[in-house]
């Protein structure tokens, strides 16, 4: 098979990337492993999606359907139930229901999302018992198959999925006994703490963690304790709580193992403002690049990657000199890390803070000159910030800071 652009992953980012690449005039093949488009949105049946991108409040499946309808209306080739096992420069190997397929292309967009951190990766102590799940697995169990994980649950970690699942479990009749968060604050959105935890009066204990899981074959309870400033449990504060299942909401890890080995990586895969990796012709967007708070943001990033992948495939992209984005210790990361010095237009820098700030400015500097400033009432570690910068103001490397 021959095409211009191959998009791997049919979630919000992948679908918008395909649509945008098609809009440029490129022939597009979209590959997904599931039997339907939409990715993880299909199991996120709660509302609150789409306010930014579609300007209306939608549930996950509705958001997915809106994009999927557009994909099916266009002449994008969709390969479902297909698994990509290798990508290289201008080549994609996929296992489809009809056998192994070799797809020659001119650009690839990787949109394969993230996976959940598991019990082993956080060194959860105790035996390997039945009843320890990641929160996303339970979400799929309940929403797709109507199966409950147990009767009394505790949740470790207060990421958005954990908070959403606390509400979902309570409504389905499972008692959520407690949520433990090792940090002094939640990494979830404020509104989710309000509507998922406080609404149902679920105890959310900050600076606490599970010290071990006990039981015979199935979870019978957990020991938990307060932690000190180095996140080490204080043994004297250890207590026991009875439960029959444990949900983990302890972070997501970008699933970028498909990328060729020579791809440059720092904390994240190194990309420029067109979302192109250091391997020419391989673009990357969505949660596989960095974890987004909102499906809307992943969709927008997909549009950027799709657009430039389309242009690249049609030999319509230009080469520019690149500058680097540096940032202060108050910031945990900036995306993208490289910027093409284009003549005109705007681009957005996404960033996540290391700490909580009140009434501060996000400042982008170029040398000693401020080239962009944005006032923020509240900056928290849990919420991604964005700032728009004009290309023409770039003279050299950029420095991003939070200040007055």
């Amino acid at each position: 098979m021959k095409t211009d652009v191959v998009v791997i992953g049919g979630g919000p980012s992948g679908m918008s990337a395909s649509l945008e690449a098609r809009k440029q005039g490129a022939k597009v093949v979209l590959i997904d492993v599931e039997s339907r488009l939409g990715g993880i949105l299909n199991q996120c049946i709660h509302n609150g999606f789409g306010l930014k991108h579609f300007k209306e409040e939608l549930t996950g499946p509705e958001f997915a359907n809106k994009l999927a309808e557009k994909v099916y209306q266009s002449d994008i080739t969709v390969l479902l139930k297909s698994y990509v096992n290798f990508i290289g420069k201008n080549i994609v190997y996929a296992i489809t229901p009809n056998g192994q397929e070799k797809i020659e292309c001119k650009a690839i967009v990787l949109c394969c999302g993230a996976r959940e951190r598991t019990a082993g990766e956080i060194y959860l102590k105790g035996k390997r018992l039945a009843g320890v799940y990641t929160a996303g697995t339970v979400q799929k169990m309940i929403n797709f198959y109507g199966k409950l994980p147990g009767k009394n649950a505790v949740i470790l970690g207060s990421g958005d999925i954990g908070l959403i699942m606390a509400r979902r479990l309570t409504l389905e009749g499972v008692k959520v006994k407690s949520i433990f968060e090792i940090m002094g604050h939640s990494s979830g959105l404020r509104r989710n703490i309000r509507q998922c935890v406080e609404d149902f009066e679920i105890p959310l204990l900050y600076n606490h963690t599970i010290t071990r899981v006990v039981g015979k074959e199935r979870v019978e309870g957990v020991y938990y304790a307060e932690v000190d400033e180095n996140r080490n449990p204080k043994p004297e504060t250890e207590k026991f709580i009875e439960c029959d299942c444990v949900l983990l909401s302890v972070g997501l890890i970008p699933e970028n193992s498909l990328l060729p080995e020579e791809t440059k990586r720092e904390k994240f895969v190194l990309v420029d403002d067109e979302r192109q990796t250091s391997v020419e012709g391989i673009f990357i967007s969505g949660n596989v690049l960095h974890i987004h708070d909102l499906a809307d943001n992943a969709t927008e990033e997909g549009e950027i990657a799709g657009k430039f992948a389309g242009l690249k495939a049609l030999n319509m992209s230009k080469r520019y000199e690149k500058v680097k984005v540096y940032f202060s210790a108050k910031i945990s990361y900036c995306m993208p890390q490289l910027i093409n010095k284009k003549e005109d237009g705007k681009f957005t820098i996404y960033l996540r803070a290391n700490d909580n700030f009140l009434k501060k400015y996000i400042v982008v500097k170029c040398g000693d000159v401020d080239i962009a400033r944005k006032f923020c009432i509240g900056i928290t570690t849990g919420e991604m910030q964005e700032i728009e910068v004009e290309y023409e103001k770039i003279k050299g490397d950029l420095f991003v800071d939070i200040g007055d």
Partner: protein
Amino acid sequence: METICICCPIGCRLSVKKENGEIVVTGNTCPRGKEYGISEFTLPKRVLTTSVVFNDFTLTMKTNIAIDKKLQNEALKQIKSIYKKEYKIGDVVIKNILDTGADVVITGKLLNV
């Protein structure tokens, strides 16, 4: 009353007070926040979403407008007892559930899960 606005991901910190018989909302950055603040002060409402699983397909649904927070469990019981029927996305399953004025609408249909 101090609360967090749940209308969008920004999550404005609202403060709602009753002054001279009028409910005053401060801290909101848009009109939706004001509306939410007033409703939170008088009768807290939430959009209810759930899924109903049949043998060969799963339906996901929501209430098209927010309903009284206290009625969530009762509404859920009624939704879970619907009969198996052919539904399309956007179809109304239950009209005016529990006299709240809200309709239960299909948001998604999953075949061969």
